[in-house]
């Protein structure tokens, strides 16, 4: 399947229908919140026990996993790809650059569902948690994103 033919909304609907505990993170989460930033990839953080179901939800879109489920669990991440690229974090917890451990269970517990369209929603981390995910392995663009998110957070902003 070509990326230009990728039905983004149908993909999010499939993830929702699958019941996978999946959080949209990365720049596409910022976009949903109302920050117009460019990005090529999709980034999800999912529960480590939901890899098979997530892969099944993605399969009709031609997205194939780069690693076996066992390898993904061992490494804590994998990729689903065709000419789309979906980074999937599956670790139970990830340290920030300053050593703070961020657990999926905690972030999932504070998640916020956001409507994408009629009948389709996505789960986002709370803004404070999204900022923490930007500190896992920060690059310059992540720092720019942290500043943008902090401005939204200080406004008490919700999507």
């Amino acid at each position, binding site marked *: 399947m070509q990326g230009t033919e990728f039905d983004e*909304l149908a993909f999010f609907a499939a993830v929702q229908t699958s019941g996978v505990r999946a959080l949209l993170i990365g720049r596409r989460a910022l976009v949903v919140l*109302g*920050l117009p930033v460019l990005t090529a990839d999709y980034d999800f953080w999912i529960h480590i026990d939901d890899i098979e179901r997530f892969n099944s939800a993605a399969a009709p879109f031609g997205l194939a996993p780069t690693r076996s489920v066992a390898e993904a669990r061992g490494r804590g991440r994998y990729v689903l790809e065709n000419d789309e690229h979906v980074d999937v974090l599956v670790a139970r917890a990830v340290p920030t650059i300053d050593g703070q451990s961020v657990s999926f269970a905690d972030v999932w517990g504070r998640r916020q569902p956001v409507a994408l369209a009629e009948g389709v929603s*996505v789960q986002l981390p709370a803004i404070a948690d999204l900022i923490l995910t930007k500190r896992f392995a920060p*690059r310059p663009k992540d720092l720019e994103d942290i500043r943008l998110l902090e401005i939204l957070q200080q406004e008490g902003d919700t999507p």
Partner: protein
Amino acid sequence: MSPGGDARARAIAASERRLTPEEVEAYLATPVSASEREEVLALVRWFRRRFSTGGERLAYVRRAYRRWTVGAQ
């Protein structure tokens, strides 16, 4: 105008570089100015007004990214 292929590659490489804890703290220690804050909030207001749902915002960015990459070729 979209950047040329080399410029685009350099921009991506620079933005993907892993930072040290010291670089992170130095960058984030710089306070957000009132003008920067207002500029960001104005942009957010425009984006939300122009694209009222999350799905529309995602679709817009997808189109914008495609234009950017096609223009760079």
